[in-house]
């Protein structure tokens, strides 16, 4: 067997096994998107209710001066929560987030703020470590399946830093919003000081006058951290769904590319095999002719 033929056979074999792996990854990601979407759906009622409750409190109390809603006059530091994935194999998913995070950083530095990164996901952690950047919060191990406990932990750390004297004055979050299976966009948002996002439909008429147990201030005290937790939980869930969607897409194109390569290599291999056979035949014919000529010359 010719050297070229052997080489091509070997490459086809290796590409085939790669295609098998990427195909399996694609299927796994597809099934996980569905689960991630269901989790997003399951979280909707709570988010809706808590947003409703926060706007109820804010509309009932005329001057809200809760520490979490008041912007400092001269902010000096900004915390940026960057939500990346734990694993790669997801195309440009992490690169997009980190690029947006860098852009946000540039923007904040332009406003004269010091930026403190808080990072979720192993990919973001290694990215920051590789560049020798200090991180003020590091979390990993749950990017593809976040629980509310994870969000609570992150929110707790951020709120503590926000309330501390020499902590941070603003908190921004960079994550990937899940629009559909095919569309995911990187979203950059400020979460603290708080701006309550109103529900899509504004309540009709005058908002009801609420009684508070025990007091409006106390309710707000325990409500606002929950609201922030819920925002972060939502960001984590959307990021997880986006991660799976990005991985599915990346693995699908990898599988397609592998199949295309296999096709090209098979063609080349067949050509090489045919060339080899042709050569062998012409060698045999040439040899036979030479023998025949030699025999004729003797006579």
């Amino acid at each position, binding site marked *: 067997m010719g050297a070229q033929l052997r080489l091509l056979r070997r490459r086809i074999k290796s590409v085939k096994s790669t295609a098998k792996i990427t195909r399996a990854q694609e299927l796994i990601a597809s099934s996980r998107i569905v689960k991630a979407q269901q*989790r997003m759906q*399951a*979280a909707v*009622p*709570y988010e809706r*209710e*808590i947003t*409703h*409750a926060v706007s*109820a*409190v804010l509309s009932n109390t005329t001057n809200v001066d809760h520490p979490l809603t008041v912007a400092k006059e001269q902010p000096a530091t900004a915390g940026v929560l960057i939500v990346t994935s734990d694993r790669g194999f997801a195309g440009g998913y992490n690169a997009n987030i980190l690029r947006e995070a860098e852009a946000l950083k540039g923007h904040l530095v332009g406003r004269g703020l010091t930026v403190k990164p808080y990072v979720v996901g192993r990919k973001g952690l290694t990215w920051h470590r590789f560049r020798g950047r200090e991180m003020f919060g590091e979390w990993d191990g749950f990017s593809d399946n976040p*629980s*509310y406990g994870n*969000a609570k932990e992150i929110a707790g750390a951020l709120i503590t830093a926000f309330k501390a004297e020499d902590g941070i004055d603003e908190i921004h979050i960079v994550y990937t919003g899940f629009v559909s299976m095919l569309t995911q966009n990187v979203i950059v948002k400020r979460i603290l000081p708080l701006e309550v996002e109103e529900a899509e439909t504004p309540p009709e008429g005058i908002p*009801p*006058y*609420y*009684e*508070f*147990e*025990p007091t409006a201030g*106390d*309710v707000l005290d*325990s*409500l606002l951290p*929950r609201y922030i*937790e*819920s925002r972060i*939980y939502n960001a984590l869930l959307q990021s997880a769904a986006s991660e799976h969607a990005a991985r599915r897409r990346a693995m699908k194109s990898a599988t397609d590319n592998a199949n295309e390569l296999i096709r090209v290599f098979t063609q080349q291999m067949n050509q090489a095999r045919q060339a080899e056979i042709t050569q062998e035949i012409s060698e045999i014919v040439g040899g036979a002719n030479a023998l025949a000529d030699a025999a004729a010359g003797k006579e």
Partner: protein
Amino acid sequence: MAKLRVGVVSPEREIWTGEADMVIAKTVDGEIGIMPNHAPVLGVLVEGGVLRVKRGDGGDLVAAVHGGFISVADNDVSILAEAAELGSEVDVARAKDALQRAQASIEADQEDADARLQAKRAAARLRAAGEEV
């Protein structure tokens, strides 16, 4: 008589929705009973409380609710719990086990706030399941 539309939701899922005649929850100020046409209220719930939803003919619904809020407006009652479990879903053996473990760690360390919280939660789950604690 008008009915209350009740929703019990936790961050991870919607636990129960339906109509009811009366809702009894425990806020940090004490127990609060909500009947139809109640004035709008927003209250903070205690850690390890038991929520009762009276449904008349449908029987009562009991749930263990850990922290969170109750919000009432226009006969809509929302219970926003950090974690909640219906009494019928409680694994009694596990809750008992958790309660014993928490009590053991409280005895070992009186300052163990985490264990106290665990004990409260376990007790609420048992009460929701109809067990005596």
